[in-house]
């Protein structure tokens, strides 16, 4: 993309006013999407993102600049702009880059950019019509097939010069059902760091369509969830969003380094129920949130966050690590060159425990079973979070009963983690897009079935 020699010149310009670290991130990304609505292929999205971001640090100060002009002149201009913003001074570091080959543990067979649009439309249609034809009560379906070919180059004054090609594919189906008591939606969105072979090896597109329809149909027949404080059983897969929001974001250096996290300064202390162990693991082959190395050139790794309820580690980028006095953990990520890299999650999930699913359900006299969760958000400073329950059922006398709509779960991360008192065996991960200051990035959430002994359920 950009030669090693040119990177050296750019970094030298960036560090010319006394930076103690300089970094160049360049990318060329091909985003494509095919969308269906009203039984027809309606839009094809096709966008090339290309540009570069330069960062310099001096002590605890960071300067970032980005440009769409990746010619030598454009890059040098951007580097000098960053250098100037850092202040006045003389160069203090020398730049010598060595090519690094981190390897690629995420093999791709059918590169989406080389496959025909007709083939993609065929996959999309089989998912779309499986949802559309599931039942007469399905009144609308919105389905998209997305693929991203994200080519990045990272060069920095630690000597790294490395390139990676991140190919991801995702199918997303939303079904709308109406049984005469208002419309309800259901959705399913499997994805992977793979090409179109994903739909041959892992996911049958028709299953995705049927799953979206099934959920919409269940919820269209559901009454409102009663409000109150009660035990909640959260199932696997996207249920893991609870951990992502209630804990994950507060373990990112961007919150911890500045003291705006309820888990700052708590390493080695118990922050969760004893049955809870959780990791952030960017090294899972072909997983949606996996990376070979992060956007600062640090190799991805498996980070143990919580072990038997004890806080073991944080997710750290280089700049946050400076203030914390800790090494980076391979979690520095950005949506693209125009965002400023910070600490983010990769694939972050609660590990399997030893409780049986039946025992977890039968332990609840009156409560909520959240089979699938929607999105949520958290305020790291207070730990206050909220999640929408996408598919919920009441539990009475240890049995799963009628479905309920409109439920949400609210609380504070530090409180809820301590209340996880049962952890099942059926660990499964699910895909999501996580939004934060460095943009929207692909991450996996996940967990086995868990029980939270009491949580505020919003409903009416």
């Amino acid at each position, binding site marked *: 993309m950009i030669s090693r020699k040119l990177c050296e010149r750019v970094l030298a310009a960036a560090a010319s006013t006394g930076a103690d670290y300089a970094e160049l991130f360049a990318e*060329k990304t091909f985003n494509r999407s*095919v969308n269906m*609505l009203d039984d*027809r*292929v309606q*839009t*094809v*999205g*096709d*966008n*090339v*993102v290309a540009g570069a971001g330069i960062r310099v640090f001096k002590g605890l*100060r*960071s*300067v*970032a600049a*980005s440009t*769409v*002009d990746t010619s030598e002149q454009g890059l040098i201009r951007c580097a000098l702009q960053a250098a100037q*913003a850092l202040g006045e001074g003389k160069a203090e570091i020398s730049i010598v880059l060595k090519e690094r080959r981190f390897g690629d543990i995420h093999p791709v067979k059918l590169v989406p950019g080389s496959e025909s*649009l007709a083939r993609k*439309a065929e996959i999309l249609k089989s998912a779309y019509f499986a949802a559309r034809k599931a039942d007469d009560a399905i*009144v*609308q379906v*919105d389905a998209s097939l997305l693929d991203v070919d994200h080519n990045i180059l990272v060069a920095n004054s630690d000597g790294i010069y490395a390139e990676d090609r991140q190919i991801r594919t995702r199918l997303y189906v939303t079904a*709308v059902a109406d049984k005469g008591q*208002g*419309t*309800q*939606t259901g959705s399913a969105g499997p994805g992977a760091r793979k090409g179109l072979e994903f739909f041959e090896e892992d996911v049958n597109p028709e299953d995705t369509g049927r799953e979206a329809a099934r959920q919409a149909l269940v919820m269209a027949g559901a009454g*409102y*969830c009663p*409000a*109150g404080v009660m035990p909640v059983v959260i199932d696997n897969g996207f249920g893991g969003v609870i951990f992502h929001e209630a804990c994950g974001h507060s373990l990112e250096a961007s919150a911890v380094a*500045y*003291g*705006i996290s*309820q888990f700052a300064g708590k390493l080695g202390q118990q922050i969760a129920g004893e049955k809870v162990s959780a990791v952030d693991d960017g090294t899972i082959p072909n997983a949606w949130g996996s990376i070979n190395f992060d956007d600062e050139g640090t190799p991805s790794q498996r980070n143990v966050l919580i072990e038997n309820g004890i806080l073991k580690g944080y997710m750290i980028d280089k700049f946050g690590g400076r203030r914390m006095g800790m090494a980076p953990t391979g979690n520095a990520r950005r949506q693209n060159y*125009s965002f*400023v890299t910070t600490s983010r999650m990769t694939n972050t999930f609660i590990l399997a425990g030893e409780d049986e699913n039946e025992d977890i359900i039968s332990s609840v006299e009156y409560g909520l079973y959240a089979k699938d969760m*929607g*999105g*949520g*958000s958290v305020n790291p*400073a*207070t730990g*206050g979070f*909220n*999640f*929408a329950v996408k598919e919920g059922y009441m539990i009475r006398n240890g049995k799963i009963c009628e479905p309920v*709509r409109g*439920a*949400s779960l*609210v*609380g*504070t991360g530090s409180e809820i983690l301590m209340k996880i008192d049962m952890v099942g065996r059926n660990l499964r991960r699910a895909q999501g897009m996580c939004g934060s200051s460095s943009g929207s990035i692909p991450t996996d959430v996940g967990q086995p079935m868990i029980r939270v002994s009491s949580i*505020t359920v*919003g*409903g*009416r």
Partner: protein
Amino acid sequence: MRYEEFKKLVVQAAEKAGLTDYELYYSASESTEIDTFRQEINKFSSSAEGGVCFRALVNGQMGYASTEDLSEEEAEAVVARARENAAVLESAEEQFLGEAGGEYEAFEKKDYPLPETDEMIRAALHGQELAYAADPRVTDGTSTVVMRMKETVAIFNSRGLDLSAENQAALCYIAAVVKDGEEMNDEYKLKAGPVCEWKQEELAEKAVKAALAKLGGRPAPTGSYPVVFAPDAMSALLMTFSPAFSAEAAQKGLSSLAGREGTKIASDCVTLVDDPFHKDSLMPMPFDAEGTPTHRKNVIENGTLTTLLHNLKTAKVAGVPSTGNASKSGYAGSVQISPFSFVLAPGEITEEELLAKAGNGVYIDTLNGTHAGADAISGDFSLQSLGFMIENGKKTYPVKDFTVAGNFFELLRHVEAVADNAEMESFGRTSFGSPSVLVSGLSIAGE
């Protein structure tokens, strides 16, 4: 390569490919942001980004291709890709490009010089000093952020449309974090405009005061109450449910407002305005993403839905003129529909009088997770909230960790009164604003 040059190459490539109906949409932005930690500048970032979207009619289908790479090869490539992409499309709808000759409203634009970097640094440090000085409980994580930005949008098409607009803005926000024992809380306040209008002292004091006011919050008691939504909270609801006002959503069966034009959908005191030239908008625009002239209109007038928001395509289907609400999120992507500044018109009573009217209820000033806990199609919401109890017509103790649940469309019919304290929040090109409103009977789930 600059846009003007790239435009010429694209036109050549399009003509060479035999295309007769095509359009090039360009947007670019530049921004600089300064962030602080304790009494230091800890982050400085400047970004420049921008790209083009080329679209063309090929056998009745509209093919799109976008790029940020404004090179000679890419000028030909976007034209080729748009043609390829059009080949798999099956849309049954008529496709449109904007026509030249529209009359664009002249509007009063708030022009002011953007601050230089030095001035921004001074303001950021000053904001921090003020925030820390406001109360001893102000702690780490408190930050003053100062930004300046510029945006350019241009549309050129084969029908003779050739438009461009520029906007620029500067703003300051102060996020105060306060700590009392183990309990932490945060709140931010923002002010856009020239530096001399930021009134940082007031901004810092307001942010700190708001953060402190929430300390010691406890869950609200579960039940059904009258609720007063403060301006920020009501604006968040308007933002969340604004997709329901899109004629496209209505025509596709994805809006509860389909076919409701001319009927009563809200109580008499509700008037909702879409204003492309609102005085507090960061991005006032004389034309929309299809080049149609924009104008101010009432979307709900005294409770009656007067119009949905249209682009050229939905307007043709409905047999009405476009309302000038075609939108694009960034340069890439297809044309959709959104409001410019969606503002609930203020009423005549003060917020105090509104609280007195509520009697006993809940005052909600923060709604979280609107992207997750709300369904724009059905109108159902169940949202994590922060606020205060209202007892005997006065705000009393702070409440947190509770949800407010209901249905937006029912809520519109149950607005009992609207106060006179309108405020607006800007989210880039679209802004939402509202005064405080009193709504009868919503479900609160706390303890």
